[in-house]
């Protein structure tokens, strides 16, 4: 533009622009992965079509419960960069608090037990978080992992909690508020579906607000460089603990809802397998993507449920280590983690959003522009 003297300059510039975008396309493999995911989805329709309605309803209830904890973990892990392999323990704290209050004290309001479960999980998150968050990376992962293991071990060995060897508590009453009681989930129930998804969507709203604010920028900044964030005035220690507590509260809330909707809990519902499931959901949905937690929870819940139903029919005679469909799920989580890290590290949400701009390459630039001016008040 500066040298408008020679007529063919704009043309060369245009060509260079084209070359650049071509190069970009050649290097970008995520489109193929999206295609693969979409193909897998469409090709498996005949398999799960039989279970539609009750199956989808049940799966969506479970996905909604998981979404609440996974969204919290995404803020902690995806935005602030602090990994936790112990979030299933916070889910457990919420679940046991709710279950014990509702079964031991007759007439204890379930909604209040739910809130108390979230708060207690948050309080324990605070106590654990202050020392543990001084650690970084693998050390933090190991410390939170240890916390999770200790929690399930305690539940299994301390029979005083439940009077059952597997830490089981049954007969948890259904959720009720203002005299309105929800029907149990044993057959799919619209009531729980609505309750859980309304809470999940409110949690999404909260995180959107948070991430777009100065706090969200502070969290992303400390993810990128703690020293730089600190010298820019972000109280990184304080932020890390607070975001850890928020993820614990959401996990506790998720646990309470799980206990109330399923009517029965036991220690194995909160073991390491679930902590890893939650991290896998974050990665698959999209680390540091606002919709990532929700998308990951839905996607992986459906995949797991379908596999658990189908595997016995596909492979009737299996080696002993695959006898339990749950074990297959664990293998699958590992495989998915590796595949996503390699080919789609930003997760399916990013992949899907890219589908929209596939035909017009200029789109991402326009989106960058918008991103800068979309701030409140801007």
């Amino acid at each position, binding site marked *: 533009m500066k040298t408008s003297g020679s007529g063919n300059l704009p043309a060369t510039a245009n060509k260079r622009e084209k070359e650049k975008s071509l190069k970009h396309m050649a290097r970008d493999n995520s489109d193929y992965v999206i295609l693969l995911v979409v193909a897998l989805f469409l090709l498996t329709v005949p398999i799960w079509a039989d279970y539609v309605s009750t199956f989808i309803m049940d799966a969506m209830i479970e996905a909604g419960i998981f979404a609440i904890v996974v969204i919290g973990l995404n803020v902690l892990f995806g935005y602030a960069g602090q990994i936790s392999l112990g979030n299933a323990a916070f889910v457990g704290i919420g679940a046991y608090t709710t279950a014990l209050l509702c079964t031991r004290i007759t007439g204890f309001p379930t909604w209040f037990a739910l809130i108390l479960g979230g708060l207690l999980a948050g309080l324990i998150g605070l106590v654990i978080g202050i020392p543990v968050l001084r650690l970084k990376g693998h050390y933090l992962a190991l410390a939170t992992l240890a916390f999770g293991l200790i929690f399930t071990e305690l539940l299994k060995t301390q029979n005083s909690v439940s009077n059952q060897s597997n830490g089981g508590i049954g007969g948890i009453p259904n959720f009720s508020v203002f005299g309105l009681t929800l029907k149990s989930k044993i057959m799919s129930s619209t009531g729980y579906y609505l309750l859980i998804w309304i809470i999940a969507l409110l949690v999404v709203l909260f995180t959107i607000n948070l991430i777009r604010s100065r706090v969200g920028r502070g969290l*992303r900044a400390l993810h990128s460089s703690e020293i730089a964030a600190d010298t820019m005035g972000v109280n990184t220690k304080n932020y890390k603990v*607070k975001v850890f507590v928020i993820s614990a509260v959401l996990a506790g809330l998720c646990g309470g809802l799980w206990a109330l909707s399923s009517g029965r809990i036991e220690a194995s519902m909160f073991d390491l397998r679930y902590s890893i499931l939650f991290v896998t959901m974050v990665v698959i949905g999209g680390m540091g993507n606002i919709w990532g937690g929700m998308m990951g929870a839905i996607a992986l819940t459906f995949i797991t449920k379908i596999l658990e139903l189908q595997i016995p029919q596909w492979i009737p005679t299996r080696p002993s280590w695959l006898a339990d469909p749950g074990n297959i799920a664990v293998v699958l989580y590992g495989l998915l983690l590796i595949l996503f890290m390699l080919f789609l590290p930003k997760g399916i949400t990013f992949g899907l959003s890219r589908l929209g701009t596939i035909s017009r390459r200029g789109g991402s630039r326009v989106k960058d522009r918008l991103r800068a001016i979309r701030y409140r008040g801007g």
Partner: protein
Amino acid sequence: MADDIILEVDNITKMFGGLAALKDVEFSVPRGEIKAVIGPNGAGKTTLFDVLTGVQRSTSGRVFLKGIDITRTKPHRITELGMARTFQTVKLFESMTALENAMVGCHSWTKRGFISNGLLLWAFAEEHRIYQHAFEVLKDVGLGTRAAELGTNLPYGQMRMLEMARALASKPEILLLDEPAAGLNPYETGELSSLLLKVRESGVTILIVEHDMGLVMDISDEVVVLDYGEVIARGTPAEVQNDPRVIEAYLGIEA
């Protein structure tokens, strides 16, 4: 007179094991000046900045900012008190636009927390102020048109400018610049020096570590020379340039 001293460095020593990175370093920065710290590679300049901003703790000695002892103060508190810095190796926040980078700089003078922002209680006005201020600062350093681009996608010279904008967004009274001209071409260095003079005019004191002697001699009021962690000379740029010990430190002993 003491009122005019914004930053006072009092006998700072920093040991790494048996090695003294800084030995009894002592100087003060008068308000409104541009003060330069120079010295050969490994003289301890960056360590000095780390100690001043609380990133590293000194072994002994004290630092006073506006008369307040900040020797043991946390980095984010120091920024709130009015001292901001840039880094020798650019430390921009990844996957954030230039504007967002500058907005992080506004952290020190804003206060709405997790709950307030999450529930949108009393958060709008502050967010608007942050946006406006960050954009103003970006325009001041000449990056107004690049606001929407990812900070790490900018050309190197502009990344340095963005880091400076981020520091300026914290409304500092004193700005610490760690080799701002490193990697800049002569034209960009020229722009930098006029920007620094403009910043000083707006009332911000500047402490600068720099290898580009041309820039240092052009803009600084006073120079401190470090070698092996010790202050070997101080004075006006002209005085320092002719000091035999400085020449020795940079060029070796004359045969």
